[in-house]
């Protein structure tokens, strides 16, 4: 046999090894992520054509319809670094990764899509594996399904931090559940470098450590890796110091831009309720939907304490408080994506086929509605 004849066989074998190295269920998750991304992007383009009566470029440029709102800030930071105070709204890991990938793609926007896609693939696999630790394979699979079709799941596919953050958070949870605390701490630190919500990992991991201590009744030094989680946030504080001369410069920036400040949860919810009196479109978006998703999060937080592991209940509770303890609840439907125990609860509820239908129909119809707004450049959380 010549060398040329053996080469393709080797390549084929390697590919086969790669395919076999992942369980079939993980490949299903990868397939779902890519298929939903494709369908969602095609849907977005069709929505722009039909609802906005706007012509789209014939080449791949039509993918840029999703380049609005926060994506612009992330791309600006990726391109130009932290130059202005407004850039401080962006935590650094996502724009830095986009910048790194741009060395290969030479296009910041497409790099953002690549980072989000890769992160979402890992997030889906990790969520399935995490849920499989406590529940059946079918429930775990359904949890990922509901995660991928959630009404605001389009943020997982576009130039936003959600998929990267959730990938790191799921990885951190899985690592501590598998007692690889150093990995949990490191991924947690990367999560806090991606979004502020990463800090919710600290109490969640402490609760997890307590639960593990109760099981074995002996101290484990590796629990101290929890202290590594805030390191990512420290990087963000250093950036603040560098850009604004003040480590907590982001606090003033947020107050100015978002016109919101910390308060009791009922203050923000009362404000959302008051927004129901605005004109119909605003009443629905900044009133009805904000309220609905905030209440859904609260309900699931309560149920989590009865049905799920305490560390998950801690995560959902702290994350929920993070976006509702403000004077003005904003983007609750998007932030609810981070409350991943919701999807496990959905997976449990969907064992009943009627509830499976209800959650699937609700999720996808509203995903269609919100994605069609976002693709047209409207604010949709």
């Amino acid at each position: 046999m010549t060398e040329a004849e053996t080469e393709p066989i080797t390549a084929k074998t390697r590919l086969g090894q790669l395919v076999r190295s992942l369980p079939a269920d993980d490949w299903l998750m990868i397939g779902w992520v890519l298929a939903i991304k494709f369908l969602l992007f095609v849907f977005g383009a069709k929505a722009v054509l039909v609802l906005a009566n706007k012509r789209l470029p014939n080449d791949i440029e039509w993918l840029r319809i999703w380049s609005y709102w926060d994506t612009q800030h992330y791309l600006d930071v990726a391109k130009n670094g932290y130059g202005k105070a407004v850039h401080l709204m962006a935590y650094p890991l996502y724009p830095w990764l986009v910048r790194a990938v741009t060395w290969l793609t030479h296009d910041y926007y497409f790099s953002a899509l690549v980072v989000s896609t890769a992160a979402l693939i890992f997030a889906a696999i990790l969520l399935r594996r995490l849920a499989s630790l406590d529940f059946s394979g079918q429930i775990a699979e359904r949890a990922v399904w509901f995660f991928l079709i959630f009404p605001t799941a389009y943020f997982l596919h576009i130039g936003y931090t959600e998929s990267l953050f959730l990938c790191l958070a799921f990885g951190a949870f899985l690592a501590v559940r598998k007692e690889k605390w150093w990995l949990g701490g490191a991924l947690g630190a990367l999560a806090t470098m991606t979004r502020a919500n990463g800090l919710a990992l600290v109490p969640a991991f402490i609760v997890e450590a307590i639960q593990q201590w109760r099981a074995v009744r002996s101290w484990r030094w590796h629990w101290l890796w929890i202290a590594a989680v805030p390191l990512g946030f420290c990087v963000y504080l250093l950036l603040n110091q560098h850009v604004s001369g003040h480590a907590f410069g982001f606090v003033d920036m947020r107050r100015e831009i978002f016109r919101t400040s910390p308060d009791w949860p009922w203050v923000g919810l009362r404000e959302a309720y008051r927004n129901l009196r605005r004109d119909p479109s605003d009443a629905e978006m900044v009133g009805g939907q904000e309220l609905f998703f905030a209440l859904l999060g609260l309900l699931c937080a309560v149920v989590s304490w009865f049905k799920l592991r305490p560390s998950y209940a801690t995560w959902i509770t702290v994350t929920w408080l993070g976006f509702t303890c403000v004077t003005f609840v904003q983007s609750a439907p998007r932030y609810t994506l981070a409350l991943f125990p919701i999807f496990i609860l959905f997976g449990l509820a969907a064992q009943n086929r009627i509830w499976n239908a209800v959650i699937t129909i609700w999720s996808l119809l509203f995903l269609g509605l919100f994605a069609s707004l976002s693709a047209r450049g409207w604010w949709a959380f």
Partner: protein
Amino acid sequence: MAGGLFDRYDVNETSTVVAATRKLLSRVPKDDWLVVAWSFVAKIVLIVFGVVSLHINNNAPLPAHDGLLQIWNRWDSVQYLRLAQSGYSAAGPWKAWFYPLFPWSTRAVAAVTGDYLIAGFIVSAVALAAAAVALRRLLCLDFSREIALRAVWFLLIFPTSYFLHIAYTESLFLAFAIGSIFAARKNIWWMAGGLGALSWMTRANGAVLVPTLAVEAAYQFWKGRRWNWQWLWICAVPLGFGVYLLLNWHVTGNPFTAIHMRKTVSVTSWAWPWTGIREAFRNLHRTPSQAEMVGAQELYFSILGLACVIVSWIKLRPVYAVWATGNWLLFSAVTFIESAPRYTLLIFPLFILFGFVSENRFWNGVITVWSLLFLALFSAVFVHGTWAF
């Protein structure tokens, strides 16, 4: 003391009623209750979705009277409800163009509800529940329970399935048509003929039942090599069309008025299927919105229907293949294809094929996501008041 006796009597009576209800309910298979529940759940979520979509996209409040349902009262629905309320008239532009069974059923229900719009929704709701049950039972004759359930699921979430819930004829027609085929499969041919006649009284597509039932009879003959006089009940199917002709005669003095009207009220006439498909291609050059709705989507669904026709002949019983072929030709063998996405709903063998394909969980996910995303888009366009098939 007396009160105690009375209480005991009351409890006994209640328990008797409960027992009787349970007995009645237990006669219906659980899966039938499941598909009925799905049809109602889909309706409720869709109605809520319609309201939210109207608020956001139109920035408009709900209409004052029957607002929740009124936003779905558009296009043909307006005509059906007008016919239900005022009857057919030679003075109107539509004369007796629309088939009568849906407006007559709506009128009958409105006699109880006092509201024609609510009555239209009730007729569609009951018909859809019946269609879902009939489809599930029909498919259980040939396929597994799971495939049958999934087929019903894909019918209920199809991108144009909002027509099944509102005051349109689709659900009533499907209930009768599927019921007719189911009766034929069960060898209850008098019922197949009767339901077929009702189906042709609901929509012109009822005509396709004649060759469909004839092929089923031929298939049964081929299998058993015995003539069955019951097959002659197929001849009852055109009676529904007979009622339509009589109605035309009564309203306009000519039984064939509606047939002659096709040239004046419709922009389309009979042609080879490729003529209409070529025209849909040309429509891709219109304004972006029109290019998408009367070009691309008409084209996609026509091609989807054609693929279903071809695969049906290979994979399914001939009765389903004939039904798919007849219905596909009815909407595509024209000079200008119009409402193909809506008419594709009637090609129910498509949902059987979806049921097959979705045994693979990946494809189950793909078809579900595609269906519901486009259901969201088309129903948002419809409640907006724009034409959506």
